[in-house]
């Protein structure tokens, strides 16, 4: 037997408490899997190589879908080291955290290597708007970054947002469709870079968000790309069997663990059975916790349509999930409630529209629309108070978006949805007192 030691030297910046963990797979020359491991800058991995293998390849998987491969000769009864290194450049260290979520070309460009095909300055007119969910209403807030960074390929803003409430960043311009991206409360960072993807569905700008939780976010990024093997290898379902009180100490890790367990099917075997319910109760402010709990109860078959419907309302009373996985679960439950009850209630329409308007921002929830309460599969462009429909598709033309009001009904804090129309009229959108654009970064 020989031993392979895998090390990772990957800089993601001092603002991150945890290192970025990545799954590494040890393969034989024919691509057969020999072993799997997880490696981070803080933790090397050791893998036992059976004696029949003299040559192996180590493949490090990144959340973006790309990988890095090393060839390793393994003499008998030896210990061999392999190092994956991407220290990045000092002057662009602010952007290194995002490299693992970008294509190879994009990652090089944001780290100042090469000349971007489309410089970020071509998006100077892209405006940003912040929305906060307060007392059942989405309210615009001034965009006040604590830090700003830029180079030729990317711009980045840091925010310090009040915790325990929902936030959305909206961006748009005359050429960039209006889109919302969920932000975590507390300290968070947003990087914007031109999209170099060849995917025909791509938007001109990539938006990448971090709440400075490299470990949890890496797992959710893999999950968002249906990379279940990588998600599992980073997973720690043991978290879910710890006392619920621990969830309060690290709610984001708890939420991620719940989403992963629901997707991988491991939630069925979790103990104690009431874990999800207690989890949601303790993270009262979190839409994600409410959504995960609601989906789990529905999948367990322990609640009826009326109860599921009430739980959906409760989920939305907390605003919006932070993670895209939450929208899939919301849609699952809403679709079941609609099919089982025949209801066309406003909150079900809201979820349907949000699902239809879904956009891509990795693991972060993102959707098209004029306001967070007016998701719309048709796209808008223009100044923040002057939305214009994109294209001339008959089915969308002339149809004002519907927006939804979250009204407090006084029923144990339960909120009720009210559906309005013409949410795209300019008077329903706040006139920005000071326009914040990428040109300001």
């Amino acid at each position, binding site marked *: 037997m020989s031993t392979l030691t895998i090390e990772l030297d990957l800089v993601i910046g001092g603002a991150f408490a945890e290192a970025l963990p990545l799954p590494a797979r040890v393969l034989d020359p024919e691509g057969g899997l020999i072993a799997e491991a997880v490696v981070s800058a803080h933790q090397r991995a050791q893998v036992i190589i059976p004696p029949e293998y003299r040559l192996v390849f180590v493949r490090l998987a990144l959340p973006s879908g790309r990988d890095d491969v090393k060839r390793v000769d393994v003499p008998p009864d030896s210990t061999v080291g392999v190092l994956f290194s991407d220290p990045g450049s000092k002057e662009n260290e602010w952007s290194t955290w995002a490299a693992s979520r970008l294509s190879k070309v994009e990652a090089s460009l944001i780290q100042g290597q090469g000349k971007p095909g489309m410089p970020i300055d071509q998006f100077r007119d892209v405006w940003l708007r912040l929305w906060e969910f307060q007392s059942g209403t989405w309210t615009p807030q001034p965009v006040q970054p604590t830090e700003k960074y830029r180079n030729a390929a990317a711009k980045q803003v840091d925010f310090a947002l009040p915790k325990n409430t929902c936030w959305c960043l909206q961006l748009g311009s005359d050429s960039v469709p209006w889109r919302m991206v969920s932000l975590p409360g507390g300290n968070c960072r947003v990087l914007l870079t031109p999209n170099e993807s060849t995917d025909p569905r791509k938007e001109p700008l990539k938006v990448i968000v971090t709440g400075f939780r490299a470990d949890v976010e890496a797992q959710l990024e893999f999950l968002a790309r249906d990379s279940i093997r990588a998600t599992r290898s980073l997973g720690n379902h043991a978290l879910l069997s710890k006392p619920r009180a621990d969830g309060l100490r690290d709610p984001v890790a708890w939420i991620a663990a719940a989403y992963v367990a629901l997707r991988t099917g491991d939630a069925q075997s979790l103990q104690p059975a009431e874990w999800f319910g207690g989890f949601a109760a303790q993270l009262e402010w979190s839409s994600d916790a409410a959504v995960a709990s609601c989906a789990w109860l529905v999948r367990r*078959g*322990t609640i009826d349509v009326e109860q599921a419907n009430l739980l959906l309302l409760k989920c939305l009373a907390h605003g919006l999930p932070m993670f895209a996985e939450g929208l899939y679960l919301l849609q699952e439950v809403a679709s079941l409630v609609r099919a089982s009850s025949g209801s066309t209630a406003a909150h079900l329409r809201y979820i349907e529209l949000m699902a239809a308007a879904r956009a891509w921002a990795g693991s972060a929830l993102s959707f098209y629309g004029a306001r967070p309460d007016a998701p719309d599969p048709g796209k808008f462009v223009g100044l923040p108070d002057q939305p214009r429909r994109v294209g001339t598709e008959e089915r969308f033309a002339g*149809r004002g978006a519907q927006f939804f009001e979250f009204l407090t009904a006084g029923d144990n804090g339960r909120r009720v949805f009210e559906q309005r129309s013409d949410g795209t009229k300019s008077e329903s959108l706040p006139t920005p007192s000071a326009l914040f654009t990428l040109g300001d970064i």
Partner: protein
Amino acid sequence: MTQILPGAARQGPGMHALILGVGKYPHLIEGDGDLADKPLGLGQLTSPPLSAAHFIDWCLGRLPGSPGGYINAAAPPASVEVLVSAPTPLQVNNGQGLVTVQAATLANVQAAFRAWLLRLKQDDNNIGVFYFCGHGIAVPDQYLLLEDFGADSDQPWDRAFDLTNTIRAVEREVKGTAYFFIDACREISLEVATTLGANPRALKVVVLRSPVLLRSSSLIFATGEGKLAFAPKDTISRFTQALVTALSGYAGIKEPGAATWGVDGEILAPAVRKLLEEENKAAKVPQVSEQAIAGKSVPIVQIPVPPRVKVKVDLSPKTMRVVAQFYLRSATGPAITHNGADGAFLTEVPLGFYDLGVLAAAQQFMPISRVNELLHPPLYSDTWRVQS
């Protein structure tokens, strides 16, 4: 109902397929019946019968060049149920003679689905395969249109079904594994969404009080949400072509200690997308497949040999081909060489690690080399820009 593979009384787990292809829509544009009140701009399709037939051939292991079509020792083929709507009814040779396939009307589909579900429930390790090719619409739940869609102007949506909630019902009925391959458009129509009565029913009612039982679920759509799926006239659709290719030895992963190469949803979906991406290079309108993978990894096929990789390497500018010598060397085996004067470098190799590159006969350009490259199925396609 038309059973091509009758599923004789056999013990143990097996694969049960339900294959639906709808090309004939009498109540849509250019159909031979009364036109529906709202035909949604939809008409007749030539591809679904051909695409469904292609998928049937794969299930029955009759595709030339394929390592044998459906192969899975853990769940051998047990039943293949088929409904296809075409101007001329499809006939399939099931080895015992020609079988005329019945039409994919709602009544027939409901009966076939019921039988399929019953068979799936008979063993906890069964694998269910549900294939549909025809018109679809997303609202954003996915609705699929059957032959008699629009027959009743008062209840036009009566003859479509809600795939999304059909899957939810399957999840609560079956303990094993289910694969859903949906070769249909997913355009999101707010017009339809806001039309009263535009809520077709699922093929089985979801009982909300029943827990989810399904161990593994893979849903692969031909196209992304809000997008269209395409097929050239009178040919197999792009998606089905890519799907069957990927399933025929161009995808797979070998887990530690395994004797075979397994293809589960997580492996299959990117292989299909990659093949479609290659097609997109020549297509007028690009198409990108989408998937939803959940639960444990349970392979749909398990092949005894390493999956193959189609290799396609070219040079830019193409004029440099004439002096180019391509090579491809496996980490453990011999090299393949190719004279660029004969055209782009096209070959097939098993999955594995390779060094590959190109040299110029008399240093007309700088050599290019890629070392330790994992050639991953189904395809390695690249165009190298050379500089003199």
